[in-house]
């Protein structure tokens, strides 16, 4: 068996995230809204997946479930084999801190911290010592092309640069998976292209697993796996 095929089989046997029969309902009775219905999904190591669909299709809700930010009302989500149902707030916090990286829409940096401090903050929460966290943060900032801008506050960075800091922050703790929710929503074409290039490069060279919620065709066109959602269900899941 060729090595690529063997690796793919191994990956399929050890998914990072599994969703089985996941549903999410907001409200009760006649006013209940089913944001997710019976989702079955495996995210495999090395995936560069886009989660697309119209507004209200359930992209963000599914990302919240995968990222341990929210509990499903039915079904089971596991991250690296650990079932999320039954974990308390502190255990979920620990899980997010150690296994999940997040990139949100713009304006999601802590404004009173510099780029370096924003990135190092996650390591600080993990209890790493100062020298280690700053060395690692510098390394990741260089990786995302922000050398020389480490001490700037978010207000002194452009939108694209802020998103690069957010990507660096998501990567700094070497999480199992990076979830990005509309990361290019507030960026122009050139900056979007640069950011997608960066994520692609990190996926290719460092095997970082990305799941990107988006309806931006410029992002979707670069994905290796495309999951389409409609009305809270996965309507298609295709790989290149």
């Amino acid at each position, binding site marked *: 068996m060729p090595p690529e095929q063997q690796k793919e089989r191994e990956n399929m046997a050890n998914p990072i995230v599994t969703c089985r029969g996941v549903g999410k309902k907001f409200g009760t009775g006649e006013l209940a809204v089913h944001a997710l219905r019976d989702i079955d999904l495996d995210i495999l190591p090395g995936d560069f997946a886009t989660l697309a669909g119209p507004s209200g299709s359930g992209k963000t809700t599914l990302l*919240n479930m995968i*990222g341990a*930010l*929210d509990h499903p009302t039915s079904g089971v989500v596991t991250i690296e084999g650990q079932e999320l149902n039954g974990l308390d*707030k*502190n255990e979920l*916090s*620990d899980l*997010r*801190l*150690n296994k999940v990286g*997040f990139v*949100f829409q713009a*304006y*999601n940096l*802590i*404004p*009173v*911290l510099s780029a370096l401090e924003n990135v190092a*903050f*996650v390591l*600080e*929460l*993990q*209890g790493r010592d100062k020298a280690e966290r700053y060395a690692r943060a510098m390394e990741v900032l260089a990786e995302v092309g922000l050398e020389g801008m480490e001490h700037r506050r978010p207000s002194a960075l452009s939108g694209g640069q802020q998103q690069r800091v957010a990507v660096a*922050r998501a990567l700094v703790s070497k999480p199992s998976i990076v979830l990005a929710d509309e990361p290019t929503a507030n960026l122009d074409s050139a900056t979007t292209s640069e950011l997608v290039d960066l994520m692609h490069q990190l996926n290719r060279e460092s095997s970082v697993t990305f799941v990107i919620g988006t309806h931006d065709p410029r992002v979707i066109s670069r994905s290796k796996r495309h999951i389409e959602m409609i009305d809270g269900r996965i309507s298609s899941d295709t790989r290149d």
Partner: protein
Amino acid sequence: MISFLKTFAPLAWRNLWRNARRTVITLIVVSVGFWSVLIFNAFLNAWSESGKQTTLSVLIGEAQIHAPGYMDDPNIELLMPPPDPALRAALDDPAISHWASRLIVPGVVQSEYKTLPVSILGVDPKDEMIVSSLPAQVVEGRYLASQTDAGVVLGESLAERLETGLGRRVILMSQNTSGALSEQSFDVVGIFDSDKGTEDFYAFTGRKAAQDFLGLKDEIAEIVLRIPDEKLLDQTVATVQKAAPDLEVKSWHSLSLMLAASDTFMKSFVFVWLGVVFSIMAIGIVNTQLMAVFERTHEIGLLRALGMKPRQVLWMITLESAFMVGLGVLLGLALGALSIFATYDGIDLSAFSEGMEMIQAADILYPDYDLKGFAIFSGIIWILGILVAIWPARRAARLSPVEAMRYAS
């Protein structure tokens, strides 16, 4: 804890200055409020202490010794002998700066025009000049020269009511040891100025002269003690009581219930003021922190999404309050220090001397800047400030990351 502070203290400090104007306004409220507590406490203590000292130095002293029952019915049959050697040894206690023995009997004073009830006080002027402020308050004539001086010193108000004056004669009358009425005329040698109660109810003469007039040998009615250090009062009273088990030794707390109540009230009132000021401060602190939490709801959601635990959010917000209130307390202390410097020589209230006399306080008040009080009030305000901020901090800690991040930043 140290690791927590290292992580969150810099963040909390910077968060504090995100809305500098609001923080400064809260700091002003906390520091001025705290300063007012310090000043109010110092001023009240000074007023209370001055009033107490003024009252005690007139006649009461810090403690007195009497024969049993005399305080309930101060008559000539309930006198006591002069101090025996054991009592004299106890009165040599270093805590007692001075003492004086007095003869006090109820009587009447009669002028050509009026007869009024008084307490006839036979004193030894040499001792009295040390234990009492009254000898120095003679405004006309002179004070008594010796214990055999058969002159009488009256208060201004009493002299006025009797329509008598310096150089005139009055008759003192009282029951003597045989139960009969003794009367003797005395020259008015001095007029003193004091509070109206003292002026109206006392007529002073030499102790020996009074004893002779009443047919007594060396019996006395009371020994008054001056004990400058209030902290040693109870212990000293107990020591003296032990040396004179057949007599009653009482501190001013029992001798003047009104003064004791007023002293307690003054000391308690500062806590009422502390409560009022703190309520205002608490509104400011809670408002500031609620606004800070509300404005940063989205960011708190982000921090929770990144892996911050609810209790870390709670401590971060609480730490911000600890910094803010702590800084306010430090500023209040600095203002307090400036006030100490400004009033080091006392606050001259002689322009209101009539009012001060009415409240039995001295014309110059020396604010009591007790460092222990500064430390206690600082601690109280700081801890209460942190406690009230736990409410907004708990609100922040309970936010769900998903819900919080829906808020626009």
